[in-house]
């Protein structure tokens, strides 16, 4: 079953390059997304058997992130169906500078999208650190052509930065793998394989200096990909220039893949009794990300960049959560689910707004509720969801992290909690000005014709409802999975 | 101090002008010419010593002192330099510092004498000379420091006495880098291609030659002779590291003299196959030599 999860999208991706006919390819995209979602759902019911001698195994963390990816991809695939039809005409006028540009061939787009899904699935099921690295690098490489869908200079710039910064970061993560390999050697004994379960089982035997160095390099490497400040510089560019569908996947799925990579490293650290060492780094990076997010959200003029910085901020929230030990990690993982759903919803909606208003400037979008009621309403709902207003799930998850901070009962925990809360308040103010200004008022200039179509509305609605549902009631199976992951991340504080 | 230890000194004093002849013959061979006699430098020196000197009225005693102090410094440095396994006349711990210092003193007085003339050409040459030597000196020092580290000896004579095949087997890469760096230092210090062209006739492109334009007669002979000694000294430095020792001291000495002339041939070959570098590029080459020496030093540090 694990192999099916990987092979289905990979084969479909390769087939997409060969298939003739646009309709057939789009059909393939949707069918693959549905098949992947079905397989993932089946994984909740029946635990799949490990494959490749234990290198591929779906543990609790893998299952959680696989589900996020699968749901987002299904929503994105559905949205992409309509999006690709709309974008099918070859020459498009650039909305900012008015020149003509082409889109990349749809074959490449769909093919890379499916391979991208395969790479992300591989990330979630890899138990071997080397394989995990290969998979995370593969997500970078398969998503780079997606960012360059609109063939113009800004998207090219974003692609180049994304490729270079992430590749360099991930090369350092490879070095971290080798450090981990040295940490696992023993004088006179065969070294332990770099499989998560083996490392956790023998964690006490690992060489501490190498393990610490490996952890730091993992933070630099996967932290770059995850968008933790100050390593986030590629993120706003890539998210704002990619097509909205791709932005949704980048923000909701790719960042989580890197987060998973870091969690795996943290699991080993915790098992080796180095939880406190990792804790400081997590909290420092997390708070830095929150500060950077807050600074750039205030006074942001571009709503897609606003959403991108909001991703930096939310990654910071998760990092702080993991740094707070078991209870905080529970909140952080729950927040990862909520954030992915809410952020994907917002990015898809931003695609709607972009298509209608043909601008990314916040100040030029006015009267969204009047001009496009469905998109407008969802936009406001999405804003409430992402800022963590009750009754959305994000409220619960942020509250859990805050509670974990105060529950540490130590002065530093209090300070982390206070700073955390203060930054969230600043971000809330920044987001409110931007979002409500867009939703209310009268449109200043005539906007594009037509009403919102089903493909534009249905995926965000579903994603929004999911966040709402998670805020009202957490299903028991999800709760169990979250608890199990949080248990492996405990031991700190 | 015994009679044997004067042999390197005597060989240097007598044979060093021959090195220039060898270089010239090598270049002539590559160019397909017959070339000047091997002993041409001796003839030149003899001729110059016969002549009187003309001194400009704008110069002071510094101008006259320059060549003499330069020669004195070169002679003193020769006292310190062993030849292969044969120790130098004078050896004491850290004598390589004095050696480098004497080379510096020599350059300083050449530069001061050049500036004393007040000629703009000579000032330009002096500026270049000082700039380039500021870049070669670190390379020289770091290379010597590497040797100290490798052999554990503080004097040039014992240092070269120590270098053996075992050293090359054990830390060949570091020693190889040192030799490479010292070769570049040798080319730069002796104003050879690719740093400077000793045969150029255009003052604007000269470095070393332009500084001695105003000297004549015995002064010029002193300058030529000290330049020849300097070439011998740096060649002996390279040879001391490269040459493996044999059991027989006489054979050692013969090998060392041969190797010094071998270095001269190599210099001739380099001059034949390379063009002079643009002045802008020269600092890069010299810093590169420093980088090589520093790399060698780090490698030596790590290995021991």
């Amino acid at each position, binding site marked *: 079953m694990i192999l099916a999860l990987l092979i289905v999208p990979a084969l479909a991706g390769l087939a997409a390059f060969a298939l003739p006919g646009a309709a057939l390819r789009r059909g393939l995209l949707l069918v693959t997304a549905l098949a992947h979602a079905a397989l993932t759902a089946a994984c909740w019911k029946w635990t799949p058997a490990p494959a490749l001698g234990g290198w591929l195994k779906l543990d609790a963390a893998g299952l959680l992130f696989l589900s996020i990816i699968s749901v987002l991809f299904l929503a994105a695939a559905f949205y992409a169906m309509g999006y690709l039809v709309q974008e099918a005409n070859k020459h498009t006028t650039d909305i900012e500078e008015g020149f003509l540009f082409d889109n990349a061939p749809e074959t490449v787009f769909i093919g890379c999208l499916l391979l991208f899904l395969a790479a992300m699935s591989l990330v979630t099921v890899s138990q071997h650190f080397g394989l995990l690295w290969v998979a995370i690098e593969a997500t970078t490489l398969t998503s780079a052509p997606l960012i360059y869908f609109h063939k113009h*200079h800004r998207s090219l710039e974003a692609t180049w930065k994304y490729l270079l910064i992430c590749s360099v970061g991930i090369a350092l993560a490879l070095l971290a793998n080798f450090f981990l390999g040295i940490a696992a050697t023993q004088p006179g004994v065969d070294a332990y394989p770099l499989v998560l379960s083996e490392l956790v089982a023998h964690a006490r035997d690992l060489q501490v200096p190498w393990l610490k160095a490996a952890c730091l390099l993992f933070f630099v490497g996967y932290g770059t990909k995850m968008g933790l400040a100050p390593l986030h510089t590629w993120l706003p560019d890539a998210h704002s220039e990619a097509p909205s569908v791709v932005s949704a996947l980048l923000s909701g799925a790719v960042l989580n893949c890197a987060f998973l990579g870091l969690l795996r490293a943290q699991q080993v650290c915790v098992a080796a009794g180095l939880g406190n060492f990792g804790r400081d780094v997590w909290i420092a990076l997390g708070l830095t990300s929150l500060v950077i997010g807050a600074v750039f959200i205030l006074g942001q003029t571009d709503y897609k960049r606003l959403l991108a910085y909001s991703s930096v901020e939310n990654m910071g929230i998760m990092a702080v959560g993991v740094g707070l030990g078991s209870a905080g990690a529970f909140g952080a993982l729950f927040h990862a689910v909520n954030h992915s759903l809410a952020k994907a919803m917002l990015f898809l909606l931003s695609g709607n707004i972009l298509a209608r208003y043909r601008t990314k400037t916040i100040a030029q979008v006015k009267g969204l509720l009047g001009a496009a009621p469905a998109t407008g309403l969802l936009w406001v709902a999405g804003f409430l969801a992402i800022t963590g207003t009750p009754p959305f799930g994000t409220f619960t998850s942020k509250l859990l992290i805050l509670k974990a901070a105060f529950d540490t009962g130590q002065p530093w925990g209090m300070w982390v909690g206070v700073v955390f809360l203060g930054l969230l308040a600043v971000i809330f103010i920044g987001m409110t000005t931007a979002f409500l200004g867009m939703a209310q008022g009268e449109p200043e200039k005539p906007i594009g014709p037509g009403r919102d179509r089903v493909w534009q509305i249905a995926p965000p609605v579903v994603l929004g409802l999911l966040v709402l549902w998670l805020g009202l009631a957490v299903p028991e199976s999800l709760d169990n999975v979250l608890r199990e992951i949080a248990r492996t991340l405990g031991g700190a504080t | 101090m015994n009679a044997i230890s004067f042999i390197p000194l005597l060989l240097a004093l007598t044979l060093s002008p021959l090195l220039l002849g060898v270089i010239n013959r090598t270049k002539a061979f590559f160019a397909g010419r017959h070339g000047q006699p091997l002993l041409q430098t001796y003839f030149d020196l003899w001729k110059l010593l016969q002549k009187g000197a003309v001194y400009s009225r704008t110069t002071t005693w510094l101008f006259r002192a320059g060549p003499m102090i330069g020669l004195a410094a070169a002679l003193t440095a020769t006292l310190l330099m062993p030849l292969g396994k044969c120790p130098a006349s004078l050896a004491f711990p850290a004598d390589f510092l004095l050696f480098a210092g004497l080379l510096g003193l020599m350059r300083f007085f050449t530069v001061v004498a050049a500036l004393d003339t007040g000629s703009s050409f000579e000032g330009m040459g002096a500026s270049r000379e000082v700039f380039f030597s500021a870049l070669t000196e670190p390379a020289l020092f770091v290379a010597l420091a590497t040797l100290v580290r490798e052999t554990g000896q503080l004097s040039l004579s014992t240092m070269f006495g120590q270098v053996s095949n075992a050293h090359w087997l054990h830390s060949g890469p570091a020693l190889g880098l040192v030799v490479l760096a010292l070769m570049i230092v040798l080319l730069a210090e002796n104003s050879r291609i690719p740093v400077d062209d000793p045969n150029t006739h255009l003052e604007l492109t000269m470095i070393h030659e332009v500084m001695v334009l105003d000297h004549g007669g015995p002064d010029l002979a002193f300058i030529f002779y000290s330049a020849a000694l300097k070439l011998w000294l740096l060649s002996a430095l390279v040879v001391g590291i490269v040459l493996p020792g044999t059991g027989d001291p006489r054979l050692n000495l013969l090998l060392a003299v041969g190797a010094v002339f071998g270095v001269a041939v190599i210099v001739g070959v380099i001059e034949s196959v390379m063009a002079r570098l643009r002045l802008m590029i020269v600092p890069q080459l010299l810093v590169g030599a420093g980088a090589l020496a520093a790399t060698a030093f780090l490698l030596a540090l*790590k290995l021991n």
Partner: protein
Amino acid sequence: MQGTNIILVLVVLTNLKLLGSSRVGSSIRVVAAQGVVLGLLPILAHAHEISWRYAGLAVGTVALKGIVFPWFLFRAVREAEVAREIEPFVGYVASLLAGVSILAVSFWMCTRLPMPEAIASAWLAPVAIFSIFAGLFLIVSRKRAVSQVLGFLVLENGVYTFGVGVAPQASLLVEAGVLLDVFVAVFVMGITIFHINREFDHIDTDRLSSLKD
């Protein structure tokens, strides 16, 4: 042992040469030479246990880093008609000096970590770390997209040196995956360079500056 050392010294020298080099063409050649030299590393560093795995790794590395990448980069440069000068932010002499300082720092860093016993040469770890930092330095100090790709390759070579020489138990599957990933990365970067050139008429990344806050 001595063979490994010579390879490592060559790696250091190629890195220094790269830092002081002003031509795109010669830089590509130097990186190619470094790739070939590193291809021999798995065989020499594990001379006592020659296996198909190391032989395969060597062949793959030489083919990829010594032949395919240079060919591909030369092609990208030729198609993009890049001027041959590299145009650094940091001058060549300063770069060289920085390189030597980085080398010193790398040696110092490696005295702080306990090395495994069965390591082929004491220089392996410092040289690997030197390559990594030199690669990073090249990426941030050079304008041309091609030079940045070369910097990335040097960085990757450093990681590879460390992996082959120091880390014991990487497996064939992972090594193949790593090589494949690097291959695709360079491939995608090369294509991007081509597009950058077509879009901007140059490949100076310092003019990629329309996206900022």
